[in-house]
């Protein structure tokens, strides 16, 4: 494995993504009194996913604000506060709930800097959980990453492990734009989801560090096929790469890390080397992130592909409840392995 392992010195611990992200928020809040947290259950409960545990105790109810269930209202309020010099962090626990506040996000928050000609900035970070795999059905299991990435003016940040969770959160909080920090629930490190995927835990230095947006991460180098993913599909791809290695196939695992901006150079560099690509995503396939990755190759140099590309993504169905049907809809290592083998057996 050739993870871009950080130089952690003596101060590193192994953390879950929730704890690592929280550490970045707390560090930035200590530094900047304009940062505050607002959302449902962020104060007393510490966030539905534990993202804000301990913050109300340290910073007080004035800076960690429990809201009524009024997403349109509090996203709008946070946006206005950001325009007036504050730097809000807004938690929307489940991305599925974004439907009720989409207007406040895409018609106002995302467009204010542009439509004001740069007069008003909206330095706001939305902290959102997404994804399925625990039988929560179609209204609590979506990804909607591409839906959000489609709207100009929003940075979409999708860390895959604790190291990136912290570094990218620092970048979100230092950025002057609307950023959406999205973590797949199954890798967040939630006890009640069994912390199923251990590779999302990582050694994390205590000191702050910022990871720039738009820089993909190569988790594993390989020569035969590139497996592109982000968030949870990075871990599926790593598992797939192990399985493929056992069969003598060398797969490279590329983590997009941020969907907007997307590191298109890194995609080209890797596929130029391997000639074959499988793009994995738990989000809907149609017009999704997988399509954007392949469009990048088609636009920049389709000749780098020696075989047709394959997408492993939700086959455009609402996420079903029942376990066998949900598993059918979700990507996993075996599906990526099968796709990699198919592409290795074909040519164009």
């Amino acid at each position: 494995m050739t993870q871009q392992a950080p130089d952690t010195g003596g101060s590193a611990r192994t953390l879950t993504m929730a704890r690592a992200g929280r550490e970045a928020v707390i560090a930035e809040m200590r530094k900047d009194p304009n940062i505050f947290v607002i959302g449902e259950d962020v104060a007393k409960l510490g966030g539905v996913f534990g993202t804000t545990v301990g913050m109300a105790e340290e910073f007080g109810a004035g800076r960690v604000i429990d809201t009524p269930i009024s997403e349109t209202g509090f996203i709008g309020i946070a946006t206005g506060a950001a325009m007036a010099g504050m730097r809000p962090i807004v938690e929307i626990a489940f991305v599925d709930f974004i439907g009720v506040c989409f207007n406040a996000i895409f018609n106002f928050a995302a467009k204010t800097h542009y439509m004001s000609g740069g007069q008003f900035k909206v330095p706001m970070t939305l902290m959102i959980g997404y994804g399925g795999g625990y039988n929560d059905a179609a209204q609590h299991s979506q990804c909607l990453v591409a839906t959000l990435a489609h709207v100009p003016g929003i940075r979409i940040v999708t860390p895959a492990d604790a190291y990136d969770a912290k570094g990218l959160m620092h970048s979100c909080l230092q950025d002057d734009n609307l950023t959406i920090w999205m973590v797949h629930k199954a890798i967040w490190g939630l006890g009640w989801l069994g912390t199923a995927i251990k590779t999302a835990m990582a050694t994390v230095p205590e000191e702050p560090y910022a990871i720039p947006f738009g820089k993909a991460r190569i988790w594993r180098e390989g020569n035969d096929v590139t497996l592109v993913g982000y968030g949870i599909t990075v871990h599926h791809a790593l598992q797939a790469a192990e399985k493929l290695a056992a069969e003598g196939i060398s797969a490279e695992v590329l983590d997009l890390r941020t969907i907007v901006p997307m590191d298109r150079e890194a995609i080209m560099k890797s596929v130029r080397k391997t000639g074959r690509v499988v793009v994995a995503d738990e989000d809907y396939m149609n017009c999704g992130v997988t399509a954007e990755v392949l469009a990048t190759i088609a636009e920049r140099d389709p000749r780098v592909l020696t075989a047709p590309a394959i997408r492993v993504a939700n086959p455009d169905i609402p996420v079903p409840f029942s376990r066998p049907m949900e598993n059918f809809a979700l990507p996993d290592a075996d599906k990526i392995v099968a796709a990699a083998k198919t592409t290795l057996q074909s040519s164009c």
Partner: protein
Amino acid sequence: MNPTPKQRIWMYEAMLKSRLFDEAVFAAYWEGKKPLFHMGKGPLPGEMHQSFGQEPTAVGVCAHLGPDDAVGAGHRPHHVAIARGVDLKRMAAELFGKKTGLSGGRGGHMHLYDNRVNFFSSGIIAEGMGPGAGMALARKMQKKPGIAVAFNGDGAVNQGAFHEVMNMAALWKLPFICVIEDNKYAVSVTTRESTVVQAWQRAAAYDCPGEYVKGNDPDLIFAAAGRAIQHARDGKGPAILELETERLHGHFIGDSAGYRAKEEVAAQQDPLPLYRKRLLDEQVLSAADLASLESQVKQEVGAAMEYGRESEYPAPQEALERVFARGPTGRAKI
């Protein structure tokens, strides 16, 4: 609280400025759109929602505001922007889509922003509620003086944002004023047809003051706005100020408002000549003072329109700039 003579003169001046601006915009809007109406043609393209008749609401409220305060308006923003003191030249240039416009031509008439006077507007109904209350929250959190006022139409009160934000503004005692301009129509649907309980009465649901001001009268609006704003400045939380007003034209230019009864339209009163007459009758201004003020406002509006018309268009590729803060971005750069 009654306005002083100086405040009354300021209110008349701002009403007149808004009216003359709208008249000049109306004339320019039709250039290139006859004989066949095409919204995208001519020097002033796009939808155009004008403020004819609604001027008193903006001046009666904004007369109380200072540099620490913030104002949000809706899709019909001209009178509010002008009463708030938005740069008229750059506002005109924005309507013409010019590089010198408030937003360099990225916003247009519904999306006016002037950070110099903490002003914004939005084309989405009730959109001012959240951001307006957020600006109030920022002032409270930063322990800075000032209040925020959001202007909304009567149609906005049935949006979820209205209720959600009023609830939070009241819970958190934000220095926030929700102004509802009741021009009696949400496009073609009357308030009576759309709203079972009016906004000012709903104030009871948020345990905050609510007042309805009849008559579209700048002096009465000034008095009521003074009470509401003082309440907010005293840290007692938000208030709802619902103001009867008149939409003398259609929803936008091109809407002949055929859905309104002839008798109803005939009964509408234009607040501008009424207020002018009152200032003369009560000797707040002499005829000579008025003539001089009117000539000065006319000149200012003329100069603004000329500035807008004569300014350069932005280069097409400037469209790629300002999507994100810090440097030009856009798909090409991502």
